[in-house]
C-alpha cells in the first residue's frame, strides 16, 4: 500500500475531487463531531533546505508559503500541509492523514489504494506529455562536412 509521501503526492498534485471524495466518505463513516479541528487551516512558512553539489553541504534556499491544518479523528491526529494558500486542501489532507494513521488506517488505505495509484498514473501521464513537448527542443547535432 502507498506510504504517506506517495499518498500526499497523489492528493496534492492530482485532481482535487479525489481528496474531497475520500474526506466525504470519512465524514459519512464517522460520528457527528468525530473530526475535531485542532488547528484551523492557516498560512505558515516552510524553510526549503537544499544540498549543494560542490561540497555536499546543506543550506537554506529560502522559504515557501504553505497552508497547514491539524485535526483529530479518534485517537489519531492528522496533519495537512500544502504549498500555497488552499485552506480546503489543507483540511482535506489533514482528515485523510488522521484517518489513514488511525486504528482503521490500514482499512482506509486499502479501500482507496487503487484510486490513489490511478491518480499517480494520471500525474505520470501528464508529466510525460509535458516531457514530450520539451523533447522537441532537444538539440540534434550534426557535423558540417568540409569540402576540400
Amino acid at each position, binding site marked *: 500500500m502507498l*506510504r504517506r*509521501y506517495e499518498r500526499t503526492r497523489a492528493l496534492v498534485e492530482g485532481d482535487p475531487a479525489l481528496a474531497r471524495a475520500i474526506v466525504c466518505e470519512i465524514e459519512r463513516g464517522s460520528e457527528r463531531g468525530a473530526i475535531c479541528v485542532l488547528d484551523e487551516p492557516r498560512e505558515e*512558512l516552510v524553510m526549503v533546505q537544499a544540498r549543494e553539489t560542490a561540497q555536499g*553541504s546543506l*543550506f537554506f534556499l529560502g522559504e*515557501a508559503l504553505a497552508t497547514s491544518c491539524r485535526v483529530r479523528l479518534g485517537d489519531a491526529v492528522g496533519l495537512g500541509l500544502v504549498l500555497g494558500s488552499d485552506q480546503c486542501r489543507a483540511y482535506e489532507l489533514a482528515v485523510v492523514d488522521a484517518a489513514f494513521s488511525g486504528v482503521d488506517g490500514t482499512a482506509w488505505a486499502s479501500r482507496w489504494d487503487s484510486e490513489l495509484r490511478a491518480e499517480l498514473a494520471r500525474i505520470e501521464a501528464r508529466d510525460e506529455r509535458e516531457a514530450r513537448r520539451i523533447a522537441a527542443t532537444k538539440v540534434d547535432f550534426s557535423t558540417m562536412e568540409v569540402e576540400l
Partner: protein
Amino acid sequence: MGYVAVRGGGKAIEESLKLLECERVSASASWGTDEIEGTFPELVDQVMGEASLYAPRLAALALKQAQGSPDEAVFLLRAFRSTLERPYVSRPVDTAQMRVARRVSAAFKDVPGGQVLGATRDYSHRLLAFDLETEGAEELAEKRAELTAHFDEAAQASEAAGREGVSAVMPRVLDYLRAQGLLAQVEADDAEPVDATMVPLSFPAPRSVRLQTLARGMTQAVEALGYAAIRGFGPAHPTVGELRQGRVAVAVDHPLEAGGPEDAYYLGSIPVTEVESVFEDEGASGASEGAGAGTGAGSGGGSTGGARAAGGSVEGVAAAAGSAAGCSASGGASLALTVGYGLVFGRAETKAIAMSVLDHCLEHGDARYPTEDEEFVLYHVDGVEATGFISHLKLPHYVTFQSKLSSVRETRGAEPEEASHAAAL
C-alpha cells in the same frame, strides 16, 4: 551634538500616499494577480527569489501594490514573511530528481539525455514584437491553440517514429567527471546549516550563509559582481558544466514521528534553476579542498575551463582521463577542477551562473580581489539592505548637513588668513 526632534509633515505624508494611490488607480488597468503572474512570470520569479519566499500569488500582489518596482515588492514580501510562523524545515530538496524543463551544458556537446533547450529566448532575435501591442484575448487563444496543436503533432510524430523522448529526470553531467576522477567525489555533509535570516552576518561566514545570502541577493547585484569576477576583478573563468531548470519536490517530515522519505509529507513542487560551474584551479586537489585554498597566483582572469579543451563529449573526456587524471601541467604545477554552485528560485539563469562564480570566488577568499571578499560581496548583494540604506539618505539630515556647512564655512573663513600668512613668509 545630539539629535533634535522635530514635528510636522504628517498631513503632507498622508496626502502624498493618497496622491500615490490616485496615480495608481488613474493609470493602471484592473489587473488581478493572475494576469500579473501570467504576463510577467520571470519578474514574479525574481521578486520571489530576492524576497526568499516562494509565493507566486503574493509576489504578483506585491508587484501590483509596488506599481512594478521589484525593490519595493521584495520589501513588501520580506515584511509579510516576518509576520508568519515558520514551524517546518523541508527535507533537503533533491535536485538530481528535478523534473527537468531545460538542461544544457557548455562543457560537452554530447551529454547523456542530450542538450535540451526547453523554453528559452537565448537564441532569439531581440526585435520588438509590435503585434503584441494590440494582442487581445482572441488572438491569444488562437495562438495558444495553434502552438498546442504544433507540439502535440510533434510529440505524436516523434512517438510514431519511435524516437526516444526526453527523460524528465536526467543524470548530472559532472557525475561523469567525478567517475573519471577529474572532479573530487562529494560526500553528503549533514552539518546543520546556519540560517542567514536568524543570525547577523559575521565573517568568516559559514558556507550555508554564503549560499543563502547569494540565493536571496539582488539579481542584478549578484550578476554584476559575478561579471566583475570573470572580467578580471577575481581570477575566475567558469565553464558551465550544467545548467538545469525545472521543478523539485518539497517534502516535510512528520513533526513527531521518526520516518524516512516515504513517510514524509509531499507539499508540492517549486521551480528552481541550478548551475554547476567548473573552474580550473592551481594547487587544489579537488572540490572538497575549495575552502581556503587560495591560488595565490591569480592573474586577474584568464584561466579557461579545463573541460572545454577536453573534447565535445563525455566519452571524449573519458578516453582522455587516463592521461589527464594527474592534472599535471607542463610547468609541474598541480591543476585540478573545482565546482562553483548556484541554486535560485524560478527561472533566473544569469543569476544562478553568477552565484556559482561568486561561490567559487568566496571559497578562495583572496583579499586582493573584491569579489573574493566576503564582506564586500555578502553585505552588498541584499536588496532590502541596499535600497533601505540608500533610501534613508532622502530623510532629513538637517543637523548633520549644518555641521558639514559649518566645517566648510570655517575652512573658507580661514583661507584668506592662511593665504596672507603664507605670503608674509
